[in-house]
């Protein structure tokens, strides 16, 4: 590490610390005005809430935590009374805690948003870049030195700390966004600029997500500058995240069009067929209709065609947002995936189980959509979709999927949970031109390829016996080929029948005759 990198790391840590510290800045004071004007509280709820919230008016709280808890209690009390009075239909299900807390925050963040934005995000970004850029001076080539000596990349204390932070972040983001309103306030100006409205926690998430992909994407481009394949692939995920996933949907909203990510597809985008989405698309004229057809064409046509031609990598490591984060932010942790046979067995049950769950859940949803009936037999379609949203959408893809990067590798979600990856994988395994070719008898069984496979494929097991790697899970990131010191592995597309699916009896280089 040279001096610039040391300064960079210091700036990053300072920026990050300030960012975390902004959560404790300012006070939270509820006023009648906030409840009535600033936030979208429905008229009928306003009256109910106002009566109970009166004691809170003007009282200032020093943390979002206490404030939002008190406010949630009020909402709970209102509902309690409604239930007692058997007015179940009036019970408030909207989550007002987040918007009310956000609107009630006042202090340095609201007064000097830009200053605090630069002190936190700004310093962290500058610091990260100062840390990353000097690696450009190293000679190009694989530089995986000390990965297993460093506590951040070998499940050491930094890795555990980082994992804990990520898990906590996702829990708060999904279930307690009211605690992080100050972070959301920091990105309000960006949200205003893009979509003309204030930021939600999801806007904050999208912003952070894109930022991570961009900065860590730059790191990828520098780290693998001897490999155009890795560089172009990194640029691709950076591009799709920034434009398709982040900016275009926000601009659509600004133009009063439906929020739509043109590269996200069912079944990863599991609520594509939910009634709210279908209704929104169908009520938005030609563009809405186009979006509906596009979304269906993606998984009906694009998946089989492109996966046949190039393997699932066309999506998983070139386009997908989850893949994009894994390939950039997650790259330092790719070696932590489990390569054991046991893990492979678990993976197959889990990922195909989730695919089945997604299909069944969607069938329920569509049944309800077309028939208007909420139950098939004793099972309510709403409880099925809620279960999916909670267990798969929130817990698995977010909390486990990203939170466990530093502990179980960067593709936990893609490998064990993503229903789209399962679908793409079936096509890749059974009907595709894609394979990783092994180069004759050159393998020295060193194990670099297996170690750095983020999907936990034991690449060496194939390479050392001269068998092509044809695996449903392979996302074609190309790192095995990059780290192989003997030039054994190559990602190739050719006639599906030319894939070497069974290890040859005798490998290239041995001239002893074959035995019939």
């Amino acid at each position: 590490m040279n001096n610039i990198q040391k300064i960079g790391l210091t700036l990053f840590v300072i920026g990050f610390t300030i960012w975390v510290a902004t959560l404790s800045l300012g006070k939270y004071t509820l006023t009648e005005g906030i409840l009535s004007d600033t936030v979208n509280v429905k008229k009928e709820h306003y009256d109910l809430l106002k009566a109970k919230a009166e004691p809170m008016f003007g009282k200032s709280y020093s943390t979002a935590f206490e404030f939002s808890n008190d406010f949630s209690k009020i909402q709970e009390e209102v509902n309690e009374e409604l239930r007692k009075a058997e007015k179940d239909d009036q019970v408030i299900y909207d989550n007002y805690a987040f918007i009310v807390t956000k609107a009630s925050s006042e202090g340095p963040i609201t007064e000097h948003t830009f200053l605090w934005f630069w002190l936190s995000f700004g310093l962290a970004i500058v610091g990260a870049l100062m840390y990353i850029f000097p690696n450009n001076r190293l000679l190009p080539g694989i530089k995986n030195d000390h990965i297993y000596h460093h506590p951040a990349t070998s499940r050491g204390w930094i890795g555990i700390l980082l994992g804990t932070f990520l898990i906590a972040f996702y829990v708060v983001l999904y279930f307690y966004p009211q605690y992080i309103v100050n972070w959301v306030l920091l990105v309000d100006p960006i949200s205003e600029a893009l979509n003309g409205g204030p930021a939600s926690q999801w806007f904050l998430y999208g912003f952070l997500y894109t930022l991570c992909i961009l900065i860590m994407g730059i790191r990828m481009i520098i780290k693998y500058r001897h490999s155009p394949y890795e560089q172009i692939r990194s640029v691709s995920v950076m591009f799709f995240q920034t434009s398709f996933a982040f900016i275009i949907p926000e601009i659509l909203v600004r133009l009063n069009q439906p929020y739509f990510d043109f590269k996200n597809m069912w079944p990863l985008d599991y609520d594509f067929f939910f009634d709210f989405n279908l209704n929104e698309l169908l009520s938005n004229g030609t563009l809405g209709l186009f979006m509906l057809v596009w979304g269906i064409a993606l998984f009906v046509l694009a998946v089989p065609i492109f996966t046949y031609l190039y393997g699932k990598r066309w999506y998983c490591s070139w386009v997908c947002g989850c893949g994009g984060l894994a390939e950039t932010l997650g790259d330092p942790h790719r070696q932590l995936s489990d390569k054991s046979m046991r893990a492979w067995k678990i993976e197959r049950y889990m990922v195909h189980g989730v695919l089945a769950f997604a299909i069944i859940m969607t069938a329920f949803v569509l049944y309800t959509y077309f028939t208007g009936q909420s139950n098939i037999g004793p099972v309510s379609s709403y409880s099925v979709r809620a279960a999916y949203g909670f267990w798969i959408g929130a817990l698995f893809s977010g909390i486990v999927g990203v939170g466990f990067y530093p502990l179980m590798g960067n593709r936990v979600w893609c490998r064990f949970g993503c229903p789209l990856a399962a679908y793409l994988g079936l096509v890749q395994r059974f009907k595709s031109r894609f394979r990783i070719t092994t180069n004759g008898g050159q393998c020295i069984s060193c194990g670099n390829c297996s170690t750095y496979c983020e999907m936990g494929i034991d690449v060496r097991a194939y390479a050392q016996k001269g068998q092509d790697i044809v695996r449903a899970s392979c996302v074609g990131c190309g790192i095995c080929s990059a780290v192989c010191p003997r030039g054994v592995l190559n990602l190739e597309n050719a006639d599906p029948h030319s894939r070497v699916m069974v290890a040859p009896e005798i490998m290239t280089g041995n001239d002893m005759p074959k035995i019939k």
Partner: protein
Amino acid sequence: MRHIVILGNGISGITAARHIRKHSDDRITVISSETEHFFSRTALMYIYMGHMKYEHTKPYEDYFWEKNRIELRQAWVSHFDFDNKSITLDEGTNVPTELTYDILILGVGSESNAFGWPGQDLEGVQGFYSFQDLEAMEANTEGIDRAVIVGGGLIGIEMAEMLLTRDIRVTMLVREEAYWNGVLPKEEAEMIGRHIREHGVDLRLETELEAIHDDNNREAALRVTSVTTKNGEQIDCQFVGLAVGVHPNVKQFSDTALETDKGILVNEFLETNIPDVYAIGDCVQHRNPLEDRKSVEQIWYTGRIMGETVARSICQTRTPYQPGVFFNSAKFMDIEYQTYGQVPAEAPEGIKSFYWEHPGGKIALRLNYREDNNTLTGINNFGMRLRHEVCEKWIKGKKSIGYVLSHFRDAHFDPEFFQRHEKSIVAAFNKHSPKHNVKLGGKAPFWERVWG
């Protein structure tokens, strides 16, 4: 059911065990004193550099052995009684165990060379071959900042690369006038030499080790503090890596009836002079080496092929050792190297040599071909990957240099989007040898057409 005992759990012994298991129900015992499980020796450097941990270098999961009924014994074999088909195992306990065999396969590997230099037994002086050497190197290089590597070969450069990751300054003493010049032709040797220097290694050519010195501190254990070279230079250092080649591990057989010379002598069936005793891998010396093959070849894949061959002889039919066209590969820091066929340091009589180097100085190709009929005899490629099957087919099929170059795209094995060199290579060849006037065939990939 025969009892097949395999001594050595390296690539040769383990390949034999696996293939014997595939084709028979015999009892198989594999013995090694080095580690409990088979690991990849070639990956030792990556453990030191932190790319991998020891467990990643094991090509098979630990359950594999029991599942395949391959018994593992971690023990040193201290005595061979070939007459009674019995060996003595020293397992670290006081009572040695006797083990009888029906068939014994010796895959005992190599040992590092040391040529009797004064001071070669000092602390901080070591070779690099075994897992124990790796542990020793960890201990020996802890907290030091100067090291000397003796020898300019494959293990020497690996040791240099390893030490650089610990911010240790490295001086490399190489006897030849260029790096690995005994094997690599001049241009390649010089290119790699430049690359070694670019990494900050103090590469001293035409320099030989004279002696290794200690600090004359008779109290403490004697540790290396400097070396002197034959030119009379003194170089201070706290570590000396001896990387001057390896020799078959045959000393242990000196008082037995097993015939050895440099290595354990075997016929083409890998049989030793003693019935039911085979030898495979690094420790072997072929009595009648095949054409274009050396009598002792210490390479990963030759060990593997011998293991495959001996397994077939034991389980199916008596089969001679028949490696195909020579090939090998290595990596010199950031530059990958592959070779196919014969590319000696000096092109012999009757062989022409075409060399192409990329202007960046890290990618190169050499094609050797016969002067009389233009058939390809060997390939050296650096910083560019070629397809083994294709190169083998060309050499075995005695394709002419013109054919090879016009079909050069077929051998391409670099990842997608990498810069393609076929055009420059063919253009350079046509300049080098205008009478051929080769035209490059095949189709350029779209990215080459895009970027020209």
